[in-house]
């Protein structure tokens, strides 16, 4: 039986949405308040969904400790309480939550193999959330 398991994590980070290819005015128009030169921050909620067959010996899809270690070590350790704009991951990409969710998906795909990575869902605020499934 295939089941989907979702685990939720929290991290906080700052960013500024700004595209060097656009003029100052165009940046202000496109990104609005998010273009504030001094940046701003969010409490992000990350939901990681993995799937697989339920192991008949353990009753589990995967070891949650392994999933937690991968997310804490590779994602939260990298992004929590950081300024996203200065990180290597965003040296050529604007740190929108769209890009952040795709980057987190790719990081987890490389670093967690105990179950199939189905989806990353990232809440930037209680009103905005983004999902990336790797396609």
């Amino acid at each position, binding site marked *: *039986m*295939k*089941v*989907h*398991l*979702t*685990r*939720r*994590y929290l991290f906080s980070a700052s960013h500024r949405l700004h595209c060097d290819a656009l003029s100052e005015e165009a940046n202000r128009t496109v990104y609005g308040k998010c273009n504030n030169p001094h940046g701003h921050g969010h409490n992000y909620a990350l939901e990681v*969904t993995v799937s697989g067959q*339920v192991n008949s*010996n*353990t*009753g*589990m*899809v995967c*070891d*949650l*400790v392994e999933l937690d270690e991968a997310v804490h070590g590779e994602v939260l350790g990298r992004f929590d309480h950081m300024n996203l704009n200065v990180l290597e991951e965003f040296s050529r990409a604007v740190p929108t939550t769209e890009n952040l969710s795709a980057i987190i998906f790719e990081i987890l795909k490389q670093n967690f193999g105990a179950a199939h990575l189905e989806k990353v869902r990232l809440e930037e605020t209680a009103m905005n959330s983004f999902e990336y499934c790797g396609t």
Partner: protein
Amino acid sequence: MVYLTRKCEFSASHYYHNPEFTAEENRRIFGKCANLNGHGHNYTLEVTVKGEADPQTGFVVDLKELKDILNREVIDVFDHRHLNKEVPEFAQQIPTTENLAIAIWNRLEKHLTLARLHRVRVYELPDLFVDFYGEP
């Protein structure tokens, strides 16, 4: 096609133990959940059914009927119970959230007539939930 989700809660105790594992293996694989004295959770169950809205009633499903089925098949059986000791499915099977979602699906599916079961979602904690879509 319309999807309708009904939510309910139950509280239960359980422990994780495979008699084929050694005591050390049980502790290593199941961690704190292997404590044979058990522990408990407030579970939240979300049941999603799907179907066409009936042209006369505008309903996908009779909510009263769905609520009665949920109460009889899940709440009366699971709420304020010890899953390992009091729920037949878990006499031989470990009551993980994965197995709980499958057991609830199997209990509900056969009783739904008008709407079809789409998803069973079981929250063990606000930050941990399992979805089962009836996939083999």
